[in-house]
């Protein structure tokens, strides 16, 4: 188990980062090239100002029609994404990794906050899963991929919390935590987690259309 852990935190981590970075840049590069070739009549209207206008409006909880009419989902979506990103980057155990791997001394979250964030991510995943199971309109469009990415997001946080508190077999939890975290990184370019890469672009695009062409709000 120690060897596995050493591998995952050593070469495994570098591979995961490399796949994530090269994969993400590659996917964005090829899709942008395709957009230039085929979607010129859309790209022509891209506008930085209106892109930002749209993105900012949608970053305000309950600031748009869609957010207002789905309050529970809105709350879960914001809590989930904020806790996931801040948690992954800034829990205290990760600060050590930033320092040892990249020589970066970064600020980290107090441990209790890190715990709360981890639990919040898992709770939100359970909420999303419940929606997929019990809301007819969500169940109708749910694919195996949607379950997969839910698991990919939840497992690193669940195992991280368990490992930190020595709940369950510690070594196994630690290995699963690192492994699932690396899977999450690798999954960003190659599964629907890629909405992390593409949603800012699709949001910017529709914001540009509604701002520069249609002179209407898109929120």
């Amino acid at each position: 188990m120690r060897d596995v852990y050493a591998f995952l935190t050593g070469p495994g981590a570098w591979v995961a980062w490399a796949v994530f970075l090269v994969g993400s840049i590659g996917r964005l590069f090829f899709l942008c090239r395709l957009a230039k070739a085929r979607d010129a009549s859309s790209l022509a209207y891209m506008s930085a100002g209106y892109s930002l206008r749209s993105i900012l409006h949608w970053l305000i909880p309950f600031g748009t029609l869609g957010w207002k009419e789905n309050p529970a989902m809105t709350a879960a979506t914001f809590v989930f994404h904020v806790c996931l990103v801040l948690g992954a980057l800034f829990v205290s155990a990760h600060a050590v990794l930033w320092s040892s791997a990249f020589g970066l001394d970064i600020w980290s979250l107090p441990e209790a906050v890190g715990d709360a964030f981890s639990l919040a991510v898992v709770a939100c995943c359970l909420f999303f899963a419940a929606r997929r199971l019990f809301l007819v309109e969500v169940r109708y469009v749910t694919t195996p991929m949607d379950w997969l990415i839910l698991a990919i997001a939840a497992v690193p946080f669940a195992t991280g919390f368990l490992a930190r508190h020595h709940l369950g077999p510690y070594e196994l939890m630690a290995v699963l935590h690192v492994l699932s975290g690396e899977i999450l990184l690798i999954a960003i370019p190659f599964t629907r987690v890629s909405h992390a890469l593409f949603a800012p672009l699709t949001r910017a695009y529709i914001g540009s259309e509604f701002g520069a062409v249609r002179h209407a709000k898109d929120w």
Partner: protein
Amino acid sequence: MPANEEAPSTVQDGRERKQQVTTVADRRIEDANLRRAVAKLDTDKIANVVMAVLEGEVGAKLKMYNQACVRCGLCSKACHYYVSHDGDPSYSPVGKATQTIWKLMRQKGRVRPDELYDMAQIAYTECNLCRRCVHYCPTGIDTGYIISVMRRILFKLGVTPLYITDTANSHSGTFNQMWVKEDEWIDSLQWQEDEARDEFPNLRIPLEKEGADILYSVIAPEPKFRTQLIYQAAAIFHVAGVDWTMCATPGWDNSDMAMFLGDSETMGRLKRMHFETAQRLRVKRIVMGECGHAFRSVYDTGNRWLGWRDHPVPVIHSVEFFWDLLESGKIKIDHKLDETVTIHDPCNIVRGRGLTEKLREVTRAICRDVVEMEPHGEHNYCCAAGGGVINCGPPFKSVRMAGNRIKADQLRATGVKTVIAPCHNCHGGLEDIINHYGLGMHLKFLGDIIYECMEKPDAV
């Protein structure tokens, strides 16, 4: 016709009802052309055309939408079809994408011809391309675009509903949507000029006047069966002293069912003709009558197909033009309409051109009292006629009626009798809704009211 007595008459009542999951098979409607077209197809032919469009025509936009859509279902409540069918998920925007284009992408186009029939029913009759769902999607997905790609594929396979196909054929053959012949067009204008000269002795409907300030273009139903609208427009322009002209050649009809069919080639020919006519007459700008879809076609869609980022001649919608005339004092209001009105916001000029406020300013300038629908402006519910749905003809009227119960609720709740809708499609759609649900309301264009209420200094 009264409302269907078995169904609850308001969506509110329906909240008690269980959400049903239906399929198109449960609601399939016979259409002669759809039936004929799918009979000629097999899976290989379908896959070839699907892949030709997916690989050859569309690009990163559709692929990114497929990736960015996390299937969260938040868009469901945006759609009048979904809401009116008590939350049947097969009518939600993402539900419709799932049953059509997402399926084709996943299966590389390998579907049976009868599956394509169902996809056509969804794409042509169960989505108005109104884009209300844009206000609900956190990742900014434009389901209208997704369904348009689906229609493009169906058009290339010939799987298109009969009535709208005939309309597009008329566009292709005559450059107008109602098989109006050139002499009939000119006759109609001269007839309206004659009529109007009884009221305004010096009124002209200028034809082919080179160098006029504006070219006024309309949709073919105006000369065909709503000629009074041309009369009214002529009266308003006459009183305002506008330097205007109409054209005597094809290019006068700004409408475009080819766009909604997926026949981009014909759309391009129509829009080129329309703009080139304006250029030939050396007008400064084009003013378009009170129609929404035509505006979408000229302002937002056709120019892109032709590779023009901007418009060779500036284009403005009647609502904006009326606003100009009232604002500049060229039209003065003699008396305001003495009844309470409500405003229906057409998607193509409100969500498509941001005319929400100008529409209200014009309405307040000419009407005594305005009651807003809820929701309104960009968030207004669609008329369910647009996007070519009403043009799919009588076989699909029931789709619009059952699919827009929410609009009936919204109209009823205003408690007024007069609805202003500056769009032909909205008129057609709302008229059917009003009759079907027994709402006892009537519709007006802005032009109707301005004509009725303006000062007419030289009228006899």
